[in-house]
């Protein structure tokens, strides 16, 4: 029972976090901030997904989190490299 409440609490925290990320992505004046916010959003989403796994007692959502952990990084680096170098594979 307490886990349920705690999970809900965490859900709400991360959901609010995602909303804040979204706010930043939309409103930030600086592309670096937007990329940062997107990266944060990926990680918060990852947390949400694992929370779902806990809430539902299911393991099938694990891979998606794993992939996000691996791949969110790749897109963030790609966005950043684009600004730094233009060419992301050189």
């Amino acid at each position, binding site marked *: 029972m307490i886990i349920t409440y705690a999970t809900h609490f965490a859900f709400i925290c991360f959901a609010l976090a995602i909303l*804040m*990320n979204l706010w930043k992505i939309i409103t930030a004046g600086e592309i670096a901030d937007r990329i940062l916010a997107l990266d*944060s959003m990926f990680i918060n989403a990852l947390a949400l997904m694992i929370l779902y796994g806990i809430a539902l007692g299911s*393991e099938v959502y694990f891979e998606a989190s794993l992939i996000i*952990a691996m791949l*969110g*990084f790749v897109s963030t*680096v790609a966005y950043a490299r684009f600004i730094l170098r233009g060419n992301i594979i050189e």
Partner: protein
Amino acid sequence: MFYEYLIAAFLVMAGLFGFVGSFGLLKLNDPMSRLHAPTKATTLGVGGVLLASMLHGAMIEGDPSLHELMITLFLFLTAPVTALFIAKVHIHRHETRQSLPKAGEDGLWATHDVAETAPETDKT
């Protein structure tokens, strides 16, 4: 019962840090400082959830698994690189050689070290 409280504690902690991380993104007023915030979400935020998940799996569901560790491993591997790149973007776009501390004997920081690695670019 103990584990339930432990799990709950991890979850609450995770939620708080996760929230604070993204909150910092809004609150902090200079871009480099904002970069600090998400590292929170990655470390204690997600870390807490992962711990909770592992404990939950092992203790509540009776299906122990440590694969959450892999996620942790990936996050610890990638987060610094992400931060580095975003910092470099910031340095590239907003910092000058003068606005940064001197880079020791090397003279300048890699991001500003343009001529050596790339054909000349004229800022237009």
